[in-house]
């Protein structure tokens, strides 16, 4: 059945994830798991962005902003001490709901912080609401204006993160505690939990991929693709294109926010660089290379490029590499790397070159 065909690549992915983990175990190279885990979380952002850009037809140069909203809120809420405010109404209320936990800080002092689950939901909800708020006006814009607006959004988030004391200014938020998902399963950077966290991260990726695959093949996915294919005609078919574009924007924001929350608990902290323009550009570069309407392409590129980058393979040229990738892909393979037919490309370049030469000699 069609349904099974759809999920077969997911099974492959699952198998690959397990195989890689086992390989690292046997070859005693389990330190790779750390970068693979982080790559997984970045890839969650990428697949969300891929659907937004490829199927929704919208560019977002500020998606790192949503990642940061998720990560920073979760981080700040679970580390800042509410004890000094424990008389205040809101704090008492939250405590009654069981959303606060008491603990001890590094120096043995008493600590009252927000429970990670509550922080997570708050963070993701906030990201979603902000996405909803700015998505409306932003998505009415086209082309350059849209790009600039999303860029502007990303910059504002970055500036807030950098300037705000609550978010740690240039140092960011650190000593973020683990996030207990279920008894025995905690998202944290502790040494013994490395393999577990690897699977948690990849679990999120796989879950996300399944959701998005389902969406693409559903009635809504068709509607999104139709908006990308011919927006005016989509409207003529009764599709409220503005609302659909908004939904997919918010969805991609939520994906990014979740990734941010989990990554922050995993790394034990987050810094302003996660909100920076370069990160946003990186996400766009990865989606562009993988093929904008190609979920698997984007995922593969996301993993490969992030992993290489995290392992330091690109050295001090890290940003430059992504810049060059952007240029080369956009110049030679705007549909993404997996869609190019090398011979056809060479032929067409040659034809173009000859045509220009003829033009020039005709002018003389």
């Amino acid at each position, binding site marked *: 059945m069609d349904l099974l065909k759809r999920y077969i690549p997911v099974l492959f992915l699952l198998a690959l994830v397990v195989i890689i983990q086992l390989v690292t175990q046997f070859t005693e190279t389990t330190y790779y798991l750390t970068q693979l885990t982080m790559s997984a979380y970045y890839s969650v952002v990428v697949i969300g962005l891929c659907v937004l850009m490829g199927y929704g037809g919208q560019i977002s140069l500020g998606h790192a902003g949503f990642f940061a909203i998720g990560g920073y809120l979760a981080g700040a809420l679970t580390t800042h001490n509410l004890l000094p405010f424990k008389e205040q109404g809101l704090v008492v209320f939250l405590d009654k709901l069981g959303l606060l936990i008491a603990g001890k800080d590094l120096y043995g002092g008493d600590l009252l912080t927000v429970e990670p689950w509550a922080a997570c939901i708050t963070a993701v909800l906030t990201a979603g609401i902000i996405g909803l708020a700015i998505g409306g006006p932003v998505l009415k814009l086209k082309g350059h204006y849209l790009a600039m607006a999303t860029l502007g959004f990303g910059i504002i988030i970055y500036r807030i993160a950098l300037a705000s004391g609550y978010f740690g200014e240039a140092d960011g938020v650190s000593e973020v505690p683990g996030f207990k998902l279920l008894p025995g399963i905690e998202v944290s950077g502790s040494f013994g939990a490395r393999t577990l966290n690897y699977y948690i991260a990849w679990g999120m990726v796989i879950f996300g991929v399944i959701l998005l695959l*389902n969406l693409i093949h559903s009635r809504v996915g068709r509607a999104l693709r139709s908006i990308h*294919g011919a927006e005016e005609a989509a*409207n003529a078919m009764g599709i409220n294109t503005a609302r659909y574009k908004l939904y997919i924007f918010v969805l991609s924001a939520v994906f990014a926010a979740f990734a941010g929350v989990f990554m922050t608990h995993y790394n034990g902290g987050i810094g302003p660089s996660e909100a920076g323009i370069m990160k946003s550009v990186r996400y766009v570069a990865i989606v562009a290379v993988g093929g904008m309407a190609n979920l698997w392409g984007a995922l593969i590129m996301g993993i490969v490029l992030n992993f290489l980058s995290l392992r330091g393979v690109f050295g001090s040229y890290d940003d430059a590499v992504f810049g060059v990738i952007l240029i080369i892909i956009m110049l030679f393979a705007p549909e993404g790397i997996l869609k190019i037919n090398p011979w056809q490309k060479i032929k067409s370049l040659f034809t173009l070159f000859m045509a220009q030469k003829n033009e020039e000699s005709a002018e003389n």
Partner: protein
Amino acid sequence: MALLEIQNLNRRFGGLQAVNNVSFIVEQGMIKAVIGPNGAGKTTLFNLIAGNLPANSGTIHFNSKRINGLKPYQIAQGGLSRTYQNIKLFHGMTALENVMVGRHIRSRAGFMAGMLNLPWTWPEERKIREKAMEYLDLLGVADCADTEISNLSFGQQRGVEFARALATEPTLLLLDEPAAGLNIYETVEIGRLISKIRESGITILLVEHDMSLVMDISDEIVVLSFGEKIAEDLPHNIQQNEEVIRIYLGDEG
């Protein structure tokens, strides 16, 4: 009953009055044609009705409800579909998928149901696909179903666009030059198809240049010239209307 009522419709572009105080009615179940020389305002009229352009003044009532001022998707949801002269199919999608989008307003699965692939959506998806194939079959382009639309011939694309518009099960169908680019035989075919569509209960308003088609199938004809309505009558009377003949300056009759 009057399905579509246009009253004193006006639309200006800068100094040009593209539609000038046009009024007419389309009764349910009829085939009405809008003709006129190039530049007469026919396409503008269509865009006004479908909601792509706002009118400067005047009203449009569809099913006794005022639709001028509504967004195109709202008007479409109300039962009004259209085709385009220059074909606006969805790029990057197959013929079948294009028509399946036509079934969008006749189905329900939303974001959540779609993402979670809820079981109740499975029979709906199947029905969407089946219905879409039916429409492709009706238009004789069933074998194009899995071809991406940019790989189809103009005639095939036209068929797919028709199927897509019909798939929405409209009450009123706007056809923008359905015979453009067709030869004599194909035009007759289209004429038969349009009549068949009317027999299934759909009202039709078409813009067309091909006079043989217009005279053949229309119940009534509206003639526009430079944005104004200069005649509205039975085909047989329009043919003999001196004013009409004059503005066409000896066009084929």
